[in-house]
């Protein structure tokens, strides 16, 4: 099963800050909920894992990442990630990400086009959920990406309110590390503490909800 996703995520950071993250595969991967680069094979090849949660289902993919292109001139990156889960599913993602200047100075836009191919059990049983879950996953990726980019010290602007999640209306404290914690990470390798898995998104709801409702609109 194939899911195509075309997304634009406005960023409250400069294009240079964003590029500092995007050009670093480890940093970018760390923005993906549940993802981590575990090994660098050569200049363009890595091994990594993604743990994602779809309701009660937990999928743990292990596989290969290839950075196919990285162009500082156009601020664009292209990568291919491929992996399999031991319970009989496999997935690949062909991702092209480009940074564009934002409408106002000091802002930028992360433009992503991804083709996700899924085979095996996940495609067979999870097909009705893939689109909404991929959407949510990418939205959280963007959230983390923002936080990571904001943490890049180059001409760091004032902390955007949207990157400070609050669990409004809830009686519990967030247990996942809050993104601003990454601010203390030294440049040029910002490492937002990895989000354990997708479901942690529930804790960042107030942020997330506004984005869905306001900025992104509905999936075409």
């Amino acid at each position, binding site marked *: *099963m194939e899911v195509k996703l075309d997304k634009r995520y406005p960023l409250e950071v400069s294009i240079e800050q964003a590029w500092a993250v995007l050009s670093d595969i480890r940093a970018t991967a760390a923005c993906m909920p549940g993802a981590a680069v575990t090994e660098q094979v050569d200049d363009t090849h890595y091994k990594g894992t993604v743990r994602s949660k779809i309701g009660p289902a937990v999928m743990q993919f292990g596989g290969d990442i290839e950075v196919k292109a990285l162009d500082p001139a156009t601020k664009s990156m292209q990568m291919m990630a491929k992996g399999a889960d031991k319970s*009989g599913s496999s997935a690949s993602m062909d991702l092209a990400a480009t940074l564009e200047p934002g409408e106002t100075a000091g802002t930028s836009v992360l433009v992503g086009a991804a083709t996700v191919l899924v*085979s*095996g059990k996940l495609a*067979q049983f999870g097909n009705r959920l893939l689109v909404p879950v991929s959407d949510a996953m990418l939205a959280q990726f963007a959230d983390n990406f923002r936080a990571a980019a904001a943490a890049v010290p180059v001409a760091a602007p004032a902390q955007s309110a949207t990157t400070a999640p609050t669990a409004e209306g809830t009686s519990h404290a967030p247990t996942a590390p809050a993104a601003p914690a990454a601010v203390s990470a030294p440049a040029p390798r910002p490492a937002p503490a990895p989000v354990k898995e997708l479901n942690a998104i529930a804790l960042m709801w107030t942020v997330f909800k506004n984005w869905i409702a306001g900025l992104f609109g509905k999936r075409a």
Partner: protein
Amino acid sequence: MNAPTDPKLLERKDALQGMGDSRLRKEDARFIQGKGNYVDDIKLPGMMHMDIVRSPYAHARIKSIDKSEALKVPGVVAVLTAEDLKPLKLHWMPTLAGDVAAVLADGKVHFQMQEVAVVIATDRYAAADGVEAVQVEYEELPVVLDPYEALKPDAPVLREDLAGKTSGAHGPREHHNHIFTWTAGDKAAADAAFASAPVTVSQHMFYPRVHPCPLETCGCVASFDPVRGELTTFMTSQAPHVVRTVVSLLSGIPESKVRIVSPDIGGGFGNKVGVYPGYVCAIVASIVLGKPVKWIEDRVENISSTAFARDYHMDGELAATPDGKILGLRVDVVADHGAFDACADPTKFPAGLFHICSGSYDIPAAHCSVKGVYTNKAPGGVAYRCSFRVTEAVYLIERMVDVLAQKLGMDKAEIRAKNFIRKEQFPYTSAFGFEYDSGDYHTALNKVLDAVGYKALRAEQAARRADPNATHLMGIGLVTFTEVVGAGPSKMCDILGVGMFDSCEIRIHPTGSAIARMGTITQGQGHQTTYAQILATELGIPSEVIQVEEGDTSTAPYGLGTYGSRSTPVAGAAIAMAARKIHAKARKIAAHLLEVGENDLDWEIDRFNVKGDPARHKTMKDIAWAAYNNVPAGLEMGLEAVHYYDPPNFTYPFGIYLCVVDIDRATGETKVRRFYALDDCGTRINPMIIEGQIHGGLTEGFAVAMGQQMPFDAQGNLLGNTLMDYFLPTAVETPHWETDHTVTPSPHHPIGAKGVAESPHVGSIPTFTAAVVDAFAHLGVTDMTMPHTSYRVWQQLVKSGVAL
């Protein structure tokens, strides 16, 4: 049969519960008390459990298989891969269709859920844990799912093992993904008919891939005794004797040391004809481990990997006169056979009996061509509750006749009556060479049209069409089908060289009870009940004291099994013929006991009477006793017989089905308002069971036409392989069925019976489609692809501009 009128005779006849009696089923006692003996109920000492590692990909190369983690799982005793089977030459196996199929993937997987490795463990939980721990590394290959795409010159090569083979079991291969091209009929004659015909119609139609999905999945318990060198396998097989032959040929174990037992089977419908990798692996595992090994498929595995049916892309053409007389038929089929050609057809017929596609009609010239193609889907091509590819054939011709009627503006009943083979034309040889045994189509059609008030229905439909505010469309589907069943005459039909006869062995015990052993195997058809009834009528022994046994190759005579409605036409004849041998011997004994000549005796229900003096008689019970102590000189003791019945011809059951549907213009929901099914299966052995078989077949037909589908995405993932998605209707969705019958016995069958259980499946599917399409006929629609789900029907409503 001449029905006696004398009350005393009637009483004696009724006491037999013979043919024509709605005798209650003998097999029910165990089933209603939870005492059935299905394969998963079998437990042998020291038994191991096997589970299967399957491919998540539809087409991929296997780069490595790592068993080490699996072998660490507590309870796992072995993991087998193709490499382990290679020394035994069992990593590939021959199929019934003359191809080979991988037992465990040999370097490459060809369809999603293909068997890659097996895990054997001390219990089924450990085996499942082991499956998850086997690590397989794949390299994906391009997937080919469309048979037309598969035949393009640059299509990926699916079967690398066949590289360079320019001919297969059924003639030349013209492309690396091509299996065979099979033709029937007279092309020149058909082309000539079309060249000069005033009217022609053509229609492309697709009969989608479906799965028989019996409630019990496939499975087996293989038990090899290393001391005796004997292999016993309990398995869900519709053809245990053929399996024994195949197992013996594959394993090298003498056939005499192989015992296949089909225990109670929880429905087959064609799913349990084939030999699957799971069986072979369980057998190998049992031989390797010296312990019994059980393998039971789960539902996802069942739908995904064993025995699909149909998947025919058909182009039909009819040539006709302007007043609707059909002059010629041409059919071109592209058949998607999946990764391996494992169709379960008589060996010489790669497209089964598809050439019955001239149907119930007197068509002077006809030709058909079927092209078999490999794709990245599971193998199968079984006859899902039908005779070999007869469902596809009936669908084709019945749809084509409707298309012609719509083009000519003729009534769909009228055009059929006009083209029917007339009663006096039987035996009738079709343009494809089938010799139809008997039929009376006009009488049956008129009976149905009267029963449903056909004219009034058409008037109601016309009024509905005229009303722009009508919330529902109304469709009337009419199908007048003829099947060809009872394969088959050995001059035409064989499986792996074994003629498609069937067999019966009868022993009459001294006290007058009897046992009949058969080469078939029941899967719910009630053989234990109905076979006894044939014997009861033939021999005058009460059904109640007749034991029927089947399914154990060590006791039953060799037979080809139960599928394609062959049990009654072939084994039912065998039982009558064997009984007649006993009857002839009994007459000799009776004559001896009564001290008269054989010709001085009259047979009467359960006894021989001396002609003109019925007070002097010997009952079959008397004779049975005498057979073991007082036989005429020169006659052997005992009273038993064996008969291997090789039918002289197929039988040709027929039926007239009519369906009325109402389609909600807002949602596409299609409600079956009425379904009337008239069947003619010749002589009726047990009307209660026939009625039950028809209800069941109609319900399966309803499921196929209205909901069953096996959709694949572009990567070859089969979507919808649990019962959440795969449509098995519940009591709520299932329509109410009205049944009726006429009786036109088969002239060549010993008791005139033709077989019935599959007619309602074969006949009802095109009836539902006809009804749904008919609802749109006034809008110019001639074809809609099954299944007619609300969603698809709604799409047609939108396309035709009538959605609310």
